């Protein structure tokens, strides 16, 4: 277990090159569940020289707080800063109502750091685990997120997604002209860096299932075209150049195909491109708008938006038979579906009393639930553990990113310090 953990962080070390500080997104928590679990992440010891570039225990606290399921004890309220489970005075922490304590020690390595951390159950008065995470010189944040993943999973039983990333589109003004930047950052908005800058619009970024590539739509050729780009090598390939719309690329769960929208036949239809052979297969035949495909986790069907019934609604297309079934019936605008990792829930943009919100629908029962109270919400993208989703909304006239749990209990915003941000795409796990 620990061995595989170490391996992962070492692999990340090769991939992530240190980049200067850029405009970041800052977390702004707007609501959490009523009864979050109190946990104390005691400041970690550091046996090397000088001061560490990152507050590792602070990052773990922030990760756990952002999940909405925990209320980390502020450092100022702690009566002591235990560094090992043996240091913990259980009586003091019981008085504070703290249920769990994390202690940890950071040591210098030949080229990086080693964190040894322990999770302690206060009421049971026992240590739940001791684990280690190793990382390179620039990886203190990776180490912190990885430790937060382990703590989160151990207590909740849900795999943590703090080590994941996102890509999004940032629009800036440069010398009075709009500039469009494909950005990539940690899922908490930190370490934002540019993937590529464009002078024409870029839209619809999507991760490949292995997290190594992106597919997106760029207007750089004068019309929308679909590109794939390798995030490690920067190698890029234009996949389509048809007349009309080339949009909404989305990778099949096994990564061998890309579903997309082409209007070369006169109106937008769903196509599937086999990436190995380069062969395109037309999947829909209807004079209406068919767009925004997304794969079911089993890869056997697609959900998509169509206005074949007069208004945009979500449909399911079974690939083997071509059969199309309507899935949404509540409301007059349901679009851009995304399927949860367990295949049981749809998230979508749903018009509710004139405003555009994010809603979920249980696919079996058809029961719909509105998750957000903001307006102009769009582009929902679900975390690989299915616990939360990221979406784009507006604050004033400015585009910001926001997150909400799929049960609507937890909400936070990620406003940008610079420019308008939109179209977040939550990465898969990287291992």
């Amino acid at each position, binding site marked *: 277990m620990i061995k595989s953990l170490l391996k992962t962080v070492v692999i990340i070390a090769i991939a992530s090159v240190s980049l200067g500080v850029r405009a970041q997104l800052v977390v702004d928590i707007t609501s959490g569940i009523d009864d979050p679990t109190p946990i104390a992440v005691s400041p970690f010891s550091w046996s090397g020289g000088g001061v560490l570039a990152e507050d590792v225990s602070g990052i773990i606290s922030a990760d756990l707080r952002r999940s909405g399921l925990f209320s980390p004890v502020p450092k100022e309220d702690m009566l002591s800063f235990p560094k090992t489970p043996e240091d913990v005075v259980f009586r003091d922490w019981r008085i504070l109502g703290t249920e769990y304590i994390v202690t940890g020690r950071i040591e210098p390595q030949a080229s990086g750091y080693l964190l040894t951390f322990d999770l302690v159950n206060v009421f049971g008065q026992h240590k739940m685990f001791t684990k280690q995470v190793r990382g390179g010189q620039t990886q203190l944040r990776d180490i912190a997120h990885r430790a937060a993943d382990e703590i989160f999973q151990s207590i909740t039983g849900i795999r943590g997604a703090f080590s994941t990333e996102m890509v999004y589109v940032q629009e800036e003004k440069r010398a009075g002209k709009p500039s469009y930047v494909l950005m990539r950052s940690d899922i908490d908005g930190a370490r934002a860096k540019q993937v590529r800058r464009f002078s024409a619009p870029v839209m619809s970024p999507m991760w490949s299932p292995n997290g190594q590539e992106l597919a997106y739509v760029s207007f750089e050729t004068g019309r929308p075209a679909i590109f794939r780009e390798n995030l490690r090598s920067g190698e890029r390939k234009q996949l389509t150049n048809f007349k009309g*719309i080339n949009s909404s690329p989305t990778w099949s769960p096994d990564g061998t195909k890309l579903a997309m929208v082409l209007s070369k036949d006169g109106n937008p239809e769903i196509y599937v491109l086999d990436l190995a052979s380069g062969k395109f297969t037309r999947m829909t035949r209807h004079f209406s708008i068919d767009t925004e495909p997304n794969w079911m986790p089993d890869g056997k069907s697609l959900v998509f938006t169509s206005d074949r019934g007069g208004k945009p609604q979500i449909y399911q297309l079974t690939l083997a038979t071509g059969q199309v079934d309507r899935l949404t019936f509540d409301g007059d605008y349901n679009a*851009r579906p995304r399927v949860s990792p367990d295949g049981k829930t749809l998230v979508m943009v749903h018009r509710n009393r004139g405003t555009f919100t994010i809603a979920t629908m249980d696919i079996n029962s058809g029961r719909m639930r509105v998750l957000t109270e903001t307006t102009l919400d769009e582009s929902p993208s679900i975390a690989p553990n299915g616990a939360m989703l990221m979406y784009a909304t507006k604050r004033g006239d400015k585009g910001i990113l926001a997150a909400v749990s799929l049960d609507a209990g937890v909400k936070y915003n990620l406003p940008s310090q610079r420019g308008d941000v939109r179209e977040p795409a939550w990465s898969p796990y990287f291992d």
Partner: protein
Amino acid sequence: MLKSVKTGLGLACVLAVMAGCSNTSSDNTSGEEYTQPEVDTQVETSVVEESETLAPLENVVYFDFDQSLLNPETRELLIRHADRMRGAASAVRLEGHADELGTREYNLALGERRANAVRDFLVLQGVDAANLEVISYGEERPAQMGSNEAARAMNRRVVIN
């Protein structure tokens, strides 16, 4: 090709009838023309009206939310554009756009539907389809910033370039 022209004609007739219905209370100096299903007559009339002037024509036409129907003013303007395009060999770009409401990929499709509606109407007026290129930008290139109805109305448009 023939099939799409036919479909276009059918659509134009429907539009003409609809325009006739909604125009009953307004001035009918030009409105009357649109109640006639005979599209060709409209063209003749407009040519007479517009042959004198060569001032630049307004090159943006606007649409209602989630709609691609051409209103009577738009059709009148497009007829004047068609008069100038006919015979001219130069290529024209029809750029379709949408407002910020709704999803981006759907809006890309909606922008194309609007630009296609303009193209089909121009072709019906005798403009060579080969000279018309449709491109949709969806909501990615708003003419006016701002999350209000005034800005949105300016953004639901097709630009004739």
